[in-house]
């Protein structure tokens, strides 16, 4: 419990520093966001000024940031340049991204570990080579190629999945994008599991357990695999945060109105409050997930719990 509280206290400076950094970075982007909004058309200077005033763009960085934080503590995340409340905007989008990330995460967890175990047990055999080749291929191909190909072949031509959008709800609408998004990390999970398991299978305690006459299934499941999963759990933990933040391309291809799309759009429009709002929540997710991972270590390896 004290451990958890300590971790939470550490999060406060991280939180302040990240939000300020992000705010400063958006602030430093070249160009005038209000002019960019106007496109090719002329805008009278008076109108530009009114808009800048409305979004505090005329104030120095530190004042803008201060005003933003003040609003944040009153539960006001600010508004976008099109006049929508940021809190309202994020509300709808988090749902989409969380569902997508969860689908991808379950996919890489289940299939990745399964492939890794099979490859490790059949080391040097056909299954091992196939997993190695397959994962190399997936890592090498850019995600938009995988995305469009999967969409056109599996969605359009074969009709196995919906092509785009969220109309069919979870899980159907999220299966294909989830698999595309998760495929990249799946390759890592499979390889990590394989390497780690292969190493553990050679270690003394496994040999001892086998020598004592313990059944092979129990040796692998109860002893070798459990130990092998520690690095995998670390990766999966950090990756959940990545999946939440890094789905820009996948969300675009499958037309999922999630966080990734929003961050991309807001950075282009230089909407400081939106970018900071999203990053703030992302930072909290990262901190939360890492906390859970640390606690999970204890379950997997009692030595960590005591130390």
């Amino acid at each position, binding site marked *: 419990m004290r451990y958890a509280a300590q971790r939470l206290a550490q999060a406060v400076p991280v939180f302040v520093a990240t939000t300020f950094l992000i705010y400063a970075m958006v602030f430093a982007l070249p160009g005038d966001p209000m002019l*960019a909004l106007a496109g090719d058309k002329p805008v009278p200077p*008076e*109108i530009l000024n009114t808009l800048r005033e409305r979004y505090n763009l005329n104030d120095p960085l530190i004042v803008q940031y201060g005003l933003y934080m003040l609003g944040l503590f009153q539960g006001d995340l600010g508004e976008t340049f099109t*006049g929508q409340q940021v809190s309202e*905007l994020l509300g709808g989008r988090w749902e989409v991204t969380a569902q997508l990330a969860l689908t991808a995460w379950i996919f890489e967890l289940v299939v990745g570990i399964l492939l890794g175990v099979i490859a490790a047990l059949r080391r040097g055999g056909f299954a091992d080579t196939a997993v190695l080749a397959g994962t190399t291929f997936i890592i090498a191909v850019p995600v938009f190629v995988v995305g469009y190909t999967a969409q056109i072949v599996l969605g359009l031509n074969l009709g196995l999945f919906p092509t785009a959008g969220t109309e069919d709800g979870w899980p159907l609408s999220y299966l294909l994008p989830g698999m595309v998004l998760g495929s990249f990390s799946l390759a890592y999970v499979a390889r990590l599991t394989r390497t780690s398991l292969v190493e553990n299978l050679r270690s003394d305690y496994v040999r001892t357990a086998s020598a004592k006459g313990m059944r092979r299934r129990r040796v692998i499941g109860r002893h070798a695999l459990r130990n092998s999963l520690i690095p995998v759990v670390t990766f999966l933990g950090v990756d959940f945060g990545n999946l939440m933040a890094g789905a820009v391309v996948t969300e675009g291809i499958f037309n999922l109105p999630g966080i990734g799309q929003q961050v991309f*759009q807001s950075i282009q429009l230089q909407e400081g409050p939106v970018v900071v709002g999203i990053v703030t929540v992302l930072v909290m997710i990262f901190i939360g997930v890492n906390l859970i991972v640390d606690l999970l270590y204890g379950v997997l390896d009692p030595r960590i719990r005591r130390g």
Partner: protein
Amino acid sequence: MTVLTRARGAAVFLSAVLALGACGSSGEEPAGEQSGTAAKGFSVALTEPDHLTPGNTSSSYSINVLQALFDTLVVIDPSGQPQMRAAESVASEDQKVWTIKIKSGQKFHNGEAVTAESFADAWNAAAYGPNAWANNYYFANVEGYDKLNPEAPEGSEEAPKPETDKLSGLKVVDPATLEVTLTAPFSQFPITLAYTGFAPMPKAALSDPKAYDVKPIGNGPFMIDGDWKRNQLIKVKRFDGYAGPRPAKSASIDFKIYASRDTAYTDLRAGNVDLLQTIPPASASEAKTLLGDRFLATPSGTMDYLGFPVFDKRFENADLRKSISMAIDRQAIVNAVFSGTFKPMSSLVAPLVPGYREGACGEACTYDPAKAKELYTKSGGVTGTLNLYFSNADPSYEQWMTAVANQLKQNLGIADIKFRKIPAADYLSTLREHKQDGPYRNNWVMDYPSPQNYLESMWGEGNRMGWESKEFNELIVQANSADSMEASIPLYQKAEDLALAEMPMMPLWNWQDQAGYSDKITGVKIDAYSPNLDTITVK
């Protein structure tokens, strides 16, 4: 993000329908060529709009929706001519004071009558500086605009609050008559009224503008059905109280919002969306084969130009500018970058604009490398590095600029060419502040089909090229105050000839819109001014 601005309208035939409109009551089925069966709905692919308040958006995506929700005073028929829609007539003796008569019997979706005041209110709100609406600038030529947009006093950034919130140039004579006084004679005024920025708004819009922006109340054949679901869906349904000339032939339209055009196109192929108006140029030939006669190519008013920084001494010589124009093979670039869908241009205005002359530019826009080289050498050529400017808003800009650079290298022997790729947010201020020191990409999306919209906006006073021609400006003033639109055309053409002879900016090509639709719908009549969604029926 590229914000496209576009005024669109559609053909309309008044007469008989007009009379029906006058006696139609709100509960009645609208008159029209409707079949007896219950009409069904269809879906349209859209990019997320910015606003849905007519005075506060110039995004073509917003306008797409607004054209279903609103009837503007005037619309533009496929031949580019204005036709009356919500207006009975728009007339003026001196092109300065305009009298607009409004058809009676029209209603907003909430039952409120559409009167001269509905227009005056909407226009005042758009012109009122502190509102900072996107179409504010469109009212700059109405008398009293300055009072609503006071300048900041010297030394201060903050503009004072306007003393009034009403344009003195707008006078509601009676519920059916609006009198508009402009600051100067302007013969093209009726055409400008087709732009959705001039649509009427009911009282409810003024009392709660925020709610109105997500749930606009219009006077068109469709009404909004529930709130706008950001980034996902805008639903509209047929307005049964509609008494105008274009009742909806379908029950509803779902505007499905896509972040990527490629995805929207895939969804059209999968049958998940019925109409896509922006098929990516790269997919054009495939779509043609796949969709057959359900593929529609419509010339648009959008043009690309290459502008010269005439204010820079190195580009002072008109012959030098012409030689660069003659050294560029427009057709080859169109074929390579836009799959041959765009049209190489030899005129400053798009083909659909009244007064367009094919080949107005003549020799100066005709690809002739030998003559170009001769003229280039004679003019002394470009000294130092030739910088080419464009923004990073779309990858195709760099593609065609690369082609331009290669042709200039090959045909004129300019060895030292560099690209200046500017962040989109910074591009226009670079041009406005005359920071470009080489030819730059210039794009224009037509607001209304008048040569004035092109010529005065891009070559008029304070232009990006720094080109100054008293004669040109005088011709524009003369044309603007001509007795009629027909009489103004020769004057605009004279001005165009002048701009072409000095070539401060050369025309490149005219865009084409590519649409496709599913086999579920019929009656698709897209033109350059409107998607005419009211004419679509569902099988």
